[in-house]
């Protein structure tokens, strides 16, 4: 069981940093499902066009809270691994600012964990975003 938390400056890379998704997290033949959720910066905040979002993370609390939440979710759903990457600083429109990767034996718990995590993250993780208007 592996938990990886990364706060990354600027937009996240296309693929998870380092190796392939399997190699990266856990190479076990018991994994039957992987879900990757990615958050991407959209061109509009409400009615107004933006060129980027600026993310402010209160560290080390942001990482600690993400790790604590990941551990909760991992235990609750009986998962194999969770990886979380979140941007800090500016991410332009179209860029990835958040990635959540879960690996588990079956698809059911992977899906439930993804939903659970994303709902809870918005409340408790001290990361703020500010629009930078176009």
């Amino acid at each position: 069981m592996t938990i990886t938390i990364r706060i990354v400056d600027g937009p996240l890379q296309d693929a998870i940093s380092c190796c392939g998704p399997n190699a990266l997290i856990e190479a076990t033949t018991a994994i039957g499902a992987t879900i990757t959720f990615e958050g991407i910066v959209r061109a509009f905040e409400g009615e107004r066009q933006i060129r980027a979002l600026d993310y402010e993370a209160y560290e080390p609390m942001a990482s600690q809270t993400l790790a604590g939440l990941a551990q909760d979710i991992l235990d609750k759903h009986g998962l194999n691994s969770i990886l979380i990457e979140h941007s800090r600083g500016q991410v332009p429109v179209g860029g990835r600012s958040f990635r959540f990767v879960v690996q588990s034996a079956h698809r059911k718990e992977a899906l439930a964990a993804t939903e659970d995590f994303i709902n809870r993250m918005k409340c408790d993780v001290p990361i703020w975003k500010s629009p930078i208007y176009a």
Partner: protein
Amino acid sequence: MPRCYTLKVIVRVHIFGELARELSCKAITVDVMSPAKVRDVNLALAVKHPMKAQFFQTARLAVNHAFSSPDTPVQSSDEVALIELVGGG
């Protein structure tokens, strides 16, 4: 012997995001009486910013990077942060 003076705790509350932009600062410093609890800090914030009193009275504070309860003790050396209106992702 009567206690004729109060000890004061100076607490610096870090603020972020929209709130920091609105108040044009990164932290709010408040004085509270010793021994201080988180509820005292909330009240002091409300008194300092009457226009946002209702918000500050119930805003969630973290003490040394952990979410607190109203009765969590607070000292001057503690790092206090207001973790409200969060929205990462």
